């Protein structure tokens, strides 16, 4: 066992104080509009987004960010960060990553870990920073294996989506664990594919998801901020 594993568990934990649990990323609208109504349809929505949504754009971007942080290529970090912010499909999705990025930057300071100083210096210079940018910086500085980091990043996302489904559908805890077990089986492959995917093939082109996120902005009764 290594310190890296423990560091990764900390980074991927829902206890990370960034408020991820307050966001559903359009899932709450998918429930409202009847696209998600039970365990099976919730599983399909999250699995499809794992494959075609986050797996197509955010995951390869996180891999590229980790590589850029490892190489101290701060211009590349800034480029990927700006592209990620511009790639967010709705106002709420963009606000989500900016808020979580802000909280991660605060956490960077609060950790009082000298090894993270370069990440703090670079991200502090930007008016806004996206969540995956800071997350990838910490993963790189803590020398976490990039494959493991990407799997953990996707796992955190999947766990958060399933927890949102549990509240919004609602579903029971057992259903949630079944969904996570199924999603978990796909994560290793999605992460490996993401690391191989050249930037020319990155894809955030999932219009029904984008529409769900936009519609959520005017949803009458809601628990989540996205």
């Amino acid at each position, binding site marked *: 066992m290594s310190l890296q594993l423990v560091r990764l568990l900390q980074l991927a934990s829902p206890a990370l104080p960034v408020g991820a649990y307050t966001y559903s990323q359009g899932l709450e609208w998918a429930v409202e509009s009847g696209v998600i109504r039970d365990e099976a349809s919730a599983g399909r929505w999250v699995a*499809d987004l794992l494959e075609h949504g986050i797996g197509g*754009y955010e995951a390869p971007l996180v891999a590229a960010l980790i590589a850029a942080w490892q190489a101290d290529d701060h211009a590349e970090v800034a480029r990927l960060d700006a592209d990620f912010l511009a*790639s967010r499909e709705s106002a709420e999705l963009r606000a989500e990553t900016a808020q979580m990025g802000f909280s991660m930057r605060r956490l960077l300071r609060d950790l009082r870990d000298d090894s993270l100083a370069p990440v703090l210096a670079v991200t502090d210079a930007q008016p806004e920073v996206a969540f995956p940018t800071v997350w990838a910086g910490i993963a790189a500085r803590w020398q976490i294996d990039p494959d493991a980091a990407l799997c953990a990043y996707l796992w955190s996302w999947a766990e958060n989506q399933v927890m949102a489904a549990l509240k919004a559908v609602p579903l029971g805890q057992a259903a949630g664990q079944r969904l996570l077990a199924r999603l978990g089986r796909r994560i290793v492959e999605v992460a490996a594919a993401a690391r191989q995917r050249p930037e020319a093939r990155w894809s955030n*082109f*999932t*219009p029904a998801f984008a529409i769900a996120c936009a519609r959520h902005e*005017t949803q009458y009764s809601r628990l989540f901020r996205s």
Partner: protein
Amino acid sequence: MNSRLPSVSPAPAWHAALHLAFARTGERTVLRDNRHHGPLRVQKALYPEGEGVCQAIVLHPPSGIAGGDHLLISATVGAGAHAQLTTPGAGKWYRSGGPEASQRLELTVEEGAALEWLPQETIVFDGARARMETRVRLAADSRFIGWDILCLGRAAAGERFEHGRFDLLCRVERGGAPIWLERGGFDGADPMLASPAGWAGHGVGGTLLCAFPDLPRQAAGLLEALRAIAPGDGASHGITALPGVLVARYLGDNSEAARLWFARLWQTLRPACCGRPAVPPRIWNT
């Protein structure tokens, strides 16, 4: 349908380019530069709403894009000028026997200038191998409204996009910094097309973008007005205002309903974005 089938007789591939530059002289927007090679052109500058706005209709005489064809359209709108680009008919991407076809759109809008990109829909035939790239470069205070409506397969013929490849890139920058980035690609019959989070089994998707400096202050009022307008066919749709760009999306099965919806949104957006009343281009009625 006159789809060219390279397996029968390989047609020569077109490498066509059109370069347009608009400039403001006095109160008038002039088409200062209009160069082309290959079958892509603008016949003349039109002034349907007075001299301030120059309208250009982009013609592609072969009427469709076959495998191996590469089209480049570049337009620069100089400081203070206002240009409106439209197309006379649907863009068609024919089935390819193998090679990729591409269309690149490079739009530059300089200080205080405005550009409207209001084309008819794009139909991607089953078996096409198409790449569409759109790059928009805005200055700090320039304005842009543009849309694209994509039909996967000839819906009227009951065709779906089951073979081939489609790749898309749309990037909008203001002052060199990205404010909008959408990219992606899929093969025919990609599971994403059937996914409830992807194309949800639909064949027509459209995106309208609108960017102008005062957007953040006007966003709330505009959103309220725009959200009161729905596509006539009841299709899935959504509108959101990002910090630098307002985005409306259509996802359904009727390209005409998508275009009419965008045209109605444009009527509300144009006065806010360009400071001019919305005068629907006559070519939309034909």
